[in-house]
Protein backbone atom coordinates (compact mmCIF):
# COMPACT_ATOMS: atom_id res chain seq x y z
CA UNK A 1 0.00 0.00 0.00
CA UNK A 2 1.31 3.43 -0.98
CA UNK A 3 0.89 6.33 1.41
CA UNK A 4 1.37 9.53 -0.51
CA UNK A 5 1.89 12.46 1.85
CA UNK A 6 1.21 14.92 -0.96
CA UNK A 7 -2.44 13.80 -0.85
CA UNK A 8 -2.96 14.72 2.80
CA UNK A 9 -5.21 17.68 1.99
CA UNK A 10 -7.34 15.61 -0.39
CA UNK A 11 -7.77 12.98 2.33
CA UNK A 12 -8.80 15.53 4.95
CA UNK A 13 -10.95 18.25 3.43
CA UNK A 14 -11.31 20.15 6.73
CA UNK A 15 -7.54 20.46 7.16
CA UNK A 16 -6.55 24.04 6.20
CA UNK A 17 -4.32 24.04 3.11
CA UNK A 18 -1.52 26.07 4.74
CA UNK A 19 -1.46 23.73 7.72
CA UNK A 20 -1.34 20.64 5.49
CA UNK A 21 1.62 22.15 3.62
CA UNK A 22 3.57 22.81 6.83
CA UNK A 23 2.84 19.34 8.23
CA UNK A 24 3.80 17.54 5.03
CA UNK A 25 6.90 19.73 4.65
CA UNK A 26 8.02 18.83 8.15
CA UNK A 27 7.31 15.12 7.58
CA UNK A 28 9.54 15.23 4.50
CA UNK A 29 12.30 16.96 6.46
CA UNK A 30 11.99 14.42 9.31
CA UNK A 31 12.30 11.54 6.86
CA UNK A 32 15.10 12.99 4.76
CA UNK A 33 17.23 14.11 7.71
CA UNK A 34 17.12 10.46 8.82
CA UNK A 35 18.54 9.52 5.43
CA UNK A 36 15.36 8.27 3.74
CA UNK A 37 14.17 8.89 0.21
CA UNK A 38 10.64 8.92 -1.18
CA UNK A 39 9.41 5.34 -1.62
CA UNK A 40 10.90 4.13 1.68
CA UNK A 41 9.14 1.10 3.26
CA UNK A 42 7.01 1.96 6.30
CA UNK A 43 6.41 -0.81 8.86
CA UNK A 44 2.86 -0.62 10.14
CA UNK A 45 1.38 -1.92 13.39
CA UNK A 46 -2.36 -1.27 13.21
CA UNK A 47 -4.01 -2.66 16.33
CA UNK A 48 -1.21 -5.25 16.51
CA UNK A 49 -1.73 -6.37 12.92
CA UNK A 50 1.62 -5.99 11.19
CA UNK A 51 1.95 -4.94 7.57
CA UNK A 52 3.99 -2.56 5.49
CA UNK A 53 3.54 0.20 2.96
CA UNK A 54 5.56 2.59 0.88
CA UNK A 55 5.82 6.16 2.03
CA UNK A 56 5.90 8.63 -0.84
CA UNK A 57 6.52 12.37 -0.82
CA UNK A 58 7.41 14.98 -3.40
CA UNK A 59 10.89 15.80 -2.00
CA UNK A 60 12.18 18.15 0.69
CA UNK A 61 14.53 21.09 0.61
CA UNK A 62 16.99 20.12 3.32
CA UNK A 63 18.54 23.60 3.05
CA UNK A 64 15.41 24.79 4.90
CA UNK A 65 16.08 22.46 7.83
CA UNK A 66 17.58 25.18 10.03
CA UNK A 67 14.46 27.32 9.66
CA UNK A 68 12.39 24.79 11.59
CA UNK A 69 12.42 23.80 15.24
CA UNK A 70 14.02 20.34 15.58
CA UNK A 71 11.29 18.87 17.79
CA UNK A 72 8.48 20.41 15.76
CA UNK A 73 9.80 18.65 12.65
CA UNK A 74 9.47 15.32 14.49
CA UNK A 75 6.06 16.04 16.04
CA UNK A 76 4.39 17.76 13.07
CA UNK A 77 5.95 15.26 10.67
CA UNK A 78 4.46 12.42 12.72
CA UNK A 79 1.04 14.06 12.54
CA UNK A 80 1.16 14.11 8.73
CA UNK A 81 2.15 10.42 8.56
CA UNK A 82 -0.42 9.23 11.14
CA UNK A 83 -3.26 11.23 9.58
CA UNK A 84 -2.42 9.91 6.10
CA UNK A 85 -2.28 6.29 7.32
CA UNK A 86 -5.47 6.68 9.40
CA UNK A 87 -7.29 7.81 6.27
CA UNK A 88 -5.83 5.12 4.01
CA UNK A 89 -6.46 2.28 6.47
CA UNK A 90 -9.59 3.35 8.31
CA UNK A 91 -11.07 6.04 6.04
CA UNK A 92 -11.10 8.45 8.98
CA UNK A 93 -11.39 12.15 8.20
CA UNK A 94 -10.36 15.09 10.35
CA UNK A 95 -13.17 16.97 12.07
CA UNK A 96 -10.97 19.43 13.93
CA UNK A 97 -7.84 19.97 16.01
CA UNK A 98 -8.36 19.92 19.76
CA UNK A 99 -6.79 21.93 22.54
CA UNK A 100 -4.24 19.94 24.53
CA UNK A 101 -6.44 19.78 27.63
CA UNK A 102 -8.77 17.44 25.72
CA UNK A 103 -5.93 14.84 25.91
CA UNK A 104 -5.90 14.35 22.12
CA UNK A 105 -4.53 16.32 19.17
CA UNK A 106 -7.27 15.55 16.69
CA UNK A 107 -10.95 14.72 16.50
CA UNK A 108 -11.77 12.57 13.48
CA UNK A 109 -14.91 10.92 12.17
CA UNK A 110 -15.32 7.25 11.39
CA UNK A 111 -18.32 6.51 9.18
CA UNK A 112 -17.25 3.00 8.20
CA UNK A 113 -19.80 1.13 10.32
CA UNK A 114 -22.77 3.06 8.94
CA UNK A 115 -23.09 5.08 12.17
CA UNK A 116 -20.87 8.14 12.51
CA UNK A 117 -18.46 7.84 15.41
CA UNK A 118 -16.00 10.43 16.62
CA UNK A 119 -12.40 9.41 17.24
CA UNK A 120 -9.96 11.14 19.59
CA UNK A 121 -6.44 10.71 18.22
CA UNK A 122 -3.22 11.58 20.03
CA UNK A 123 -0.07 11.65 17.90
CA UNK A 124 3.64 11.71 18.61
CA UNK A 125 6.93 11.20 16.81
CA UNK A 126 10.24 9.62 17.83
CA UNK A 127 13.38 10.69 16.01
CA UNK A 128 15.57 7.80 17.17
CA UNK A 129 14.92 4.53 18.98
CA UNK A 130 11.87 2.50 19.88
CA UNK A 131 8.35 3.87 19.71
CA UNK A 132 6.89 1.44 22.28
CA UNK A 133 7.37 3.53 25.42
CA UNK A 134 5.95 6.63 23.72
CA UNK A 135 2.97 4.65 22.44
CA UNK A 136 2.15 3.46 25.96
CA UNK A 137 2.41 7.01 27.26
CA UNK A 138 0.14 8.38 24.56
CA UNK A 139 -2.45 5.64 25.04
CA UNK A 140 -2.60 6.49 28.74
CA UNK A 141 -3.06 10.14 27.82
CA UNK A 142 -5.79 9.68 25.22
CA UNK A 143 -7.69 7.29 27.52
CA UNK A 144 -8.54 10.38 29.61
CA UNK A 145 -10.27 12.05 26.67
CA UNK A 146 -14.02 12.44 27.19
CA UNK A 147 -16.74 12.80 24.56
CA UNK A 148 -15.21 10.49 21.94
CA UNK A 149 -16.55 7.11 20.86
CA UNK A 150 -13.05 5.78 20.21
CA UNK A 151 -9.65 6.74 21.58
CA UNK A 152 -6.49 6.06 19.62
CA UNK A 153 -2.80 6.89 19.75
CA UNK A 154 -0.47 6.94 16.77
CA UNK A 155 3.32 7.10 17.01
CA UNK A 156 5.85 7.36 14.18
CA UNK A 157 9.51 6.39 14.42
CA UNK A 158 11.63 8.10 11.78
CA UNK A 159 14.95 6.27 12.19
CA UNK A 160 13.67 3.09 10.55
CA UNK A 161 10.26 4.27 9.38
CA UNK A 162 7.65 2.59 11.55
CA UNK A 163 4.18 3.58 12.66
CA UNK A 164 1.86 2.13 15.29
CA UNK A 165 -1.82 2.99 15.63
CA UNK A 166 -3.51 1.48 18.68
CA UNK A 167 -6.80 2.07 20.44
CA UNK A 168 -7.73 2.09 24.10
CA UNK A 169 -10.73 -0.01 25.04
CA UNK A 170 -14.00 1.46 23.79
CA UNK A 171 -15.84 3.46 26.44
CA UNK A 172 -19.25 5.01 26.60
CA UNK A 173 -19.40 8.68 25.53
CA UNK A 174 -18.88 11.15 28.36
CA UNK A 175 -17.99 8.49 30.93
Amino acid sequence: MDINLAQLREMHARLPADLALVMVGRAMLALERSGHKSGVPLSLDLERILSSGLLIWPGAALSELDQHDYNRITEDGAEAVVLAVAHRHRAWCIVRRMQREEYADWLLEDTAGGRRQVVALEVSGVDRGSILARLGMKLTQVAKSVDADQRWAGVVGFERPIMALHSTKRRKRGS
Partner: protein
Amino acid sequence: MEADSLNSLVTGAIWRAEQLEAHNIKSAPQAWAEVSSLEEELAKVLPVSGPEGRIARRGAVRAALKAGDYARAEAMAGCYSAEDAAPKSLKTELAKILEEDTRAMARRFRYAARHHSPREARDLARRFRQAGAFGLAA
Protein backbone atom coordinates in the same frame (compact mmCIF):
# COMPACT_ATOMS: atom_id res chain seq x y z
CA MET B 1 -21.40 29.93 9.18
CA GLU B 2 -21.45 26.15 8.86
CA ALA B 3 -19.78 23.82 11.34
CA ASP B 4 -17.38 22.45 8.68
CA SER B 5 -15.99 25.91 7.90
CA LEU B 6 -15.74 26.75 11.60
CA ASN B 7 -13.96 23.46 12.28
CA SER B 8 -11.36 24.32 9.62
CA LEU B 9 -10.94 27.80 11.05
CA VAL B 10 -10.60 26.62 14.65
CA THR B 11 -8.08 23.99 13.55
CA GLY B 12 -5.87 26.63 11.95
CA ALA B 13 -6.35 29.02 14.87
CA ILE B 14 -5.39 26.42 17.51
CA TRP B 15 -2.35 25.46 15.47
CA ARG B 16 -1.19 29.08 15.23
CA ALA B 17 -1.80 29.77 18.91
CA GLU B 18 0.15 26.65 19.91
CA GLN B 19 3.09 27.64 17.70
CA LEU B 20 3.16 31.21 19.04
CA GLU B 21 2.96 29.95 22.62
CA ALA B 22 5.76 27.44 22.01
CA HIS B 23 8.02 30.26 20.87
CA ASN B 24 6.94 32.65 23.66
CA ILE B 25 5.66 35.16 21.13
CA LYS B 26 3.84 38.05 22.83
CA SER B 27 0.78 37.83 20.61
CA ALA B 28 -0.07 34.28 21.75
CA PRO B 29 -2.91 35.52 24.03
CA GLN B 30 -4.49 37.32 21.05
CA ALA B 31 -4.30 34.10 19.07
CA TRP B 32 -6.07 32.28 21.92
CA ALA B 33 -8.73 35.00 21.96
CA GLU B 34 -9.39 34.19 18.30
CA VAL B 35 -9.62 30.49 19.18
CA SER B 36 -12.12 31.30 21.94
CA SER B 37 -14.23 33.32 19.55
CA LEU B 38 -14.30 30.51 16.97
CA GLU B 39 -15.09 27.89 19.63
CA GLU B 40 -17.96 30.12 20.76
CA GLU B 41 -19.29 30.26 17.18
CA LEU B 42 -19.04 26.47 16.99
CA ALA B 43 -20.91 26.19 20.28
CA LYS B 44 -23.73 28.21 18.72
CA VAL B 45 -24.21 25.78 15.83
CA LEU B 46 -23.45 22.49 17.63
CA PRO B 47 -25.92 21.29 20.30
CA VAL B 48 -24.66 20.57 23.80
CA SER B 49 -26.16 17.09 23.49
CA GLY B 50 -23.45 16.12 20.98
CA PRO B 51 -19.77 15.45 21.74
CA GLU B 52 -18.53 18.17 19.39
CA GLY B 53 -20.82 20.74 21.02
CA ARG B 54 -19.38 19.95 24.42
CA ILE B 55 -15.80 20.05 23.11
CA ALA B 56 -16.48 23.49 21.60
CA ARG B 57 -17.98 24.80 24.87
CA ARG B 58 -15.02 23.63 26.95
CA GLY B 59 -12.71 24.98 24.24
CA ALA B 60 -14.30 28.43 24.29
CA VAL B 61 -13.83 28.70 28.06
CA ARG B 62 -10.28 27.31 28.06
CA ALA B 63 -9.12 29.52 25.21
CA ALA B 64 -10.56 32.61 26.92
CA LEU B 65 -8.46 31.77 29.98
CA LYS B 66 -5.38 31.28 27.83
CA ALA B 67 -6.13 34.71 26.36
CA GLY B 68 -6.11 36.08 29.91
CA ASP B 69 -9.81 36.98 29.82
CA TYR B 70 -11.24 35.45 32.98
CA ALA B 71 -14.42 37.53 32.85
CA ARG B 72 -15.28 36.15 29.41
CA ALA B 73 -14.42 32.60 30.48
CA GLU B 74 -16.60 32.89 33.58
CA ALA B 75 -19.51 34.39 31.63
CA MET B 76 -19.38 31.66 28.98
CA ALA B 77 -19.08 28.90 31.57
CA GLY B 78 -22.18 30.34 33.26
CA CYS B 79 -24.14 30.42 29.99
CA TYR B 80 -23.16 26.90 28.95
CA SER B 81 -23.90 25.47 32.40
CA ALA B 82 -27.34 27.07 32.32
CA GLU B 83 -28.34 25.37 29.06
CA ASP B 84 -31.29 23.05 29.62
CA ALA B 85 -29.68 20.07 27.89
CA ALA B 86 -26.24 20.54 29.45
CA PRO B 87 -25.20 17.26 31.10
CA LYS B 88 -23.96 17.32 34.68
CA SER B 89 -20.53 16.15 33.51
CA LEU B 90 -20.10 19.28 31.36
CA LYS B 91 -21.12 21.58 34.22
CA THR B 92 -18.58 19.85 36.47
CA GLU B 93 -15.84 20.14 33.84
CA LEU B 94 -16.51 23.84 33.24
CA ALA B 95 -16.38 24.55 36.96
CA LYS B 96 -13.14 22.55 37.19
CA ILE B 97 -11.55 24.55 34.37
CA LEU B 98 -12.25 27.82 36.20
CA GLU B 99 -11.09 26.41 39.56
CA GLU B 100 -7.83 25.18 38.05
CA ASP B 101 -7.18 28.62 36.59
CA THR B 102 -7.87 30.23 39.96
CA ARG B 103 -5.45 27.84 41.67
CA ALA B 104 -2.82 28.58 39.03
CA MET B 105 -3.25 32.31 39.65
CA ALA B 106 -2.91 31.87 43.42
CA ARG B 107 0.31 29.88 42.86
CA ARG B 108 1.66 32.55 40.54
CA PHE B 109 0.95 35.43 42.92
CA ARG B 110 1.66 33.73 46.25
CA TYR B 111 2.30 36.88 48.26
CA ALA B 112 -0.84 38.64 47.03
CA ALA B 113 -2.88 35.47 47.58
CA ARG B 114 -2.01 35.62 51.30
CA HIS B 115 -3.86 38.92 51.58
CA HIS B 116 -6.62 38.65 48.98
CA SER B 117 -8.43 35.68 47.54
CA PRO B 118 -8.32 35.30 43.74
CA ARG B 119 -12.08 35.95 43.75
CA GLU B 120 -11.55 39.34 45.45
CA ALA B 121 -8.79 40.24 42.99
CA ARG B 122 -10.96 39.31 40.03
CA ASP B 123 -13.93 41.17 41.40
CA LEU B 124 -11.75 44.26 41.78
CA ALA B 125 -10.46 43.86 38.21
CA ARG B 126 -14.02 43.50 36.91
CA ARG B 127 -15.15 46.66 38.71
CA PHE B 128 -12.08 48.47 37.44
CA ARG B 129 -12.88 47.48 33.87
CA GLN B 130 -16.54 48.43 34.21
CA ALA B 131 -16.14 51.76 35.96
CA GLY B 132 -12.64 52.89 35.09
CA ALA B 133 -9.98 54.01 37.57
CA PHE B 134 -12.09 56.74 39.20
CA GLY B 135 -15.06 54.43 39.56
CA LEU B 136 -13.26 52.47 42.27
CA ALA B 137 -13.06 55.54 44.46
CA ALA B 138 -16.79 56.13 44.23
